[in-house]
């Protein structure tokens, strides 16, 4: 379970965060939310699909790391074996939360929280959060700017997904993977860009998608499908 509290430089001055990637720190996840702003980096390593949030049913784009629950095929003895790690993985143990903004009626302002039950947290190992005089370290500053990017990413995803749905550009997708030992894995609950619909779009719609910055994201998501084969090969390599 998680236990998020607001981060502050007195209560948390001695905290350190272990940045090693391993199953013991909860990195054995099958997929993670991603955002168009990082699609360029994500698509070079992972297939990008869309899935539904189980709490709200809302779609979001996700980077795929494995073929079944709790399987991350990029996780090795030596850590996470890829050139880019998506922001929603790297953000741990931090979370961006929202507080009522006293300056604006009904407004919310983003605040940084930390998960005190996250196994990465300790006071001897890893990256310190604050310097001796209580200032944020470079590690914390980077983490905060990443949280800000995630905050904007959430907003961007909302508009992106709404636009895709409005133009019927998402479709359900079932992936049958037959491994070298003959066993079958079926990936369900994922959605992808409806390429046929994409090719049938009118010029005006293309222009709109381009103007809003969605067109590039759409084609990068389509291109990312080529990362499925290396993913399956990674899985096959695990067969003795």
């Amino acid at each position, binding site marked *: 379970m998680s236990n998020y509290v607001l981060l502050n430089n007195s209560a948390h001055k001695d905290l350190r965060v272990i940045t090693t990637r391993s199953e013991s720190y909860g990195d054995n996840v099958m997929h993670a939310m991603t955002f168009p702003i990082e699609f360029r980096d994500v698509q070079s390593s992972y297939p990008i699909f869309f899935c539904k949030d*189980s709490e709200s049913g809302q779609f979001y784009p996700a980077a795929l790391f494995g073929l079944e629950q709790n399987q991350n095929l990029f996780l090795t003895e030596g850590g996470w074996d890829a050139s880019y790690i998506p922001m929603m993985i790297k953000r741990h143990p931090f979370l961006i939360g929202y507080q009522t903004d006293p300056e604006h009626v009904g407004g919310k302002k983003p605040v940084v929280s930390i998960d005190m039950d996250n196994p990465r947290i300790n006071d001897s190992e890893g990256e310190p959060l604050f310097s001796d005089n209580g200032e944020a370290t470079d590690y914390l500053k980077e983490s905060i700017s990443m949280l800000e990017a995630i905050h904007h990413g959430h907003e961007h995803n909302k508009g992106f997904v709404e636009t895709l749905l409005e133009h019927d550009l998402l*479709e359900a997708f079932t992936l049958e993977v037959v491994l070298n030992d003959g066993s079958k894995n079926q990936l369900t609950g994922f959605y992808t860009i409806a390429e046929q619909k994409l090719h049938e779009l009118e010029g005006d719609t293309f222009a709109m998608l381009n103007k809003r910055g969605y067109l590039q994201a759409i084609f990068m998501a389509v291109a990312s499908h080529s990362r499925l084969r290396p993913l399956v090969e990674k899985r096959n390599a695990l067969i003795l």
Partner: protein
Amino acid sequence: MTPDQKINSIVIVGGGTAGWLTAGIIAAEHSANGTAINDLVDVQITLVESPDVPTIGVGEGTWPSMKSTLQKMGISETDLIRECDASFKQGTLFNGWKTGGNDAYTHPFTPPHSYASTNLAPQWQKFRNEVAFADAVSSQNALMFQGLAPKQISTPEYAFNANYGYHLDAGKFAELLRKHCVDKLGITHLKANVIAINSSADGDIESLQTDTEGHIAGDLFVDCSGSKALLLGEHFEIPFCSRSQFLFNDTALASQVPYTNSDDPIASSTLSTAQTSGWIWDIGLPTRRGIGHVYSSAHTTEDRASEELLAYIKATVSAEAASTTSIRKVAFNPGHRAKFWHKNCVAVGMSAGFIEPLEASALVLVELSAAMIAEQLPANRQVMDLVAKRFNTKFLYRWDRIIDFLKLHYILSQRQDSDYWKDNIAASSIPESLSELIDLWRWQSPWHRDTGHIDEMFPSASFQYVLYGMGFETQSSTTVRRSDREADSAAAGLFRENAERTQKLLASMPTNRELIDKITTYGLQKI
């Protein structure tokens, strides 16, 4: 009309759920949007509604068929839930029907597990004292008893984990249909009172004379004017066939009761609780419950029926709700017209007939009638008589089957606590067709070939649920059957599969209230 007169213009009289559903179902099949292709023309649909007659706004239950009906019309399920105060219904939960005590059983919408190939009823008979039939063969029974939803927020519109229909506010439903029919399906909506009916020489209706919209001419007239049956009854004088000799209930006391707390559970089944001379319906909408007592006026008084209704509200809601609720009385004659389609006029809804809402047959009959009109829409006046004849045969058959199925609930009861229950098992009150089936089912359980038609309203599965839910016993076969042997070896596995699926659903389905709240906040996805 001349025999070769084309049927291009349909006029619907009445703007309740029957009128708008009929309009929408016909328009979903026959473009009325002015999108003429080559020399083909659109069917014109006009709905004329009296501005003075209020629609009846009680809560209503639908069948699962409403999902595809609405989907075909292009209505979003999210809009339905948000705008019609609608919730999910997975069937009916019957209380006190067997003995008048604390007995309860369900008639779920999902047929028994593997019903297409295997009849589990004879296999279940061996365990009849250990497990309820619906629980052994269906995972929906447990969902219904626990008030869980039939799907999750991530399940697309109209898709499901367990089949469902709706509970909804009929007034709001008619309004949603009206908006959709007028804005999206190109239906002309006129508000006027029909003051006279103009006939042609051959007796067909030529036009309706109205107070504010002049003459409205048409090729086919659909009577959705409610129980007064303005066209089929008042104008054509098609006789009414009372069926009160079989089904005694002829009066309803209806009330609307708010929840004590706004987050109280919403039942995911219609609750039907037997009384001394009738039964009480309890329909959970998101904002209120619709509770009513339908009874036989020959067996009890209005005061007595009202007392029982208030006692129920007091016991299941609160004493305060019982003391503040207002009750509306609706009297009806159970039965239907001798025919439904006469000349160029067809009746749909209460103008065709009405019977107690024990299995929520009212709206589904509207859907089936409108679907047949849409599918079989006569090309010209000449062929209309043939279509009318077939329509009448089909729907008279359907009324008879509804009466059989409703009556089944009464004749299986062990209740002897009033003349009502005693009279209900008198041989003279049981249709012969039903008596025959009961004799048959003493020796063999209901199965696919028992029913006469492929599009039967109540399939054999429904009969299984009610028979075995009420404790009916079918003798086991005394000869060896190959199919039994096969079922015997498959049964253990199927019962186990059903139990596993039940556990999975119980662990993953939200409550009906939780799902409705989420749909209000997020909406359902279309894919």
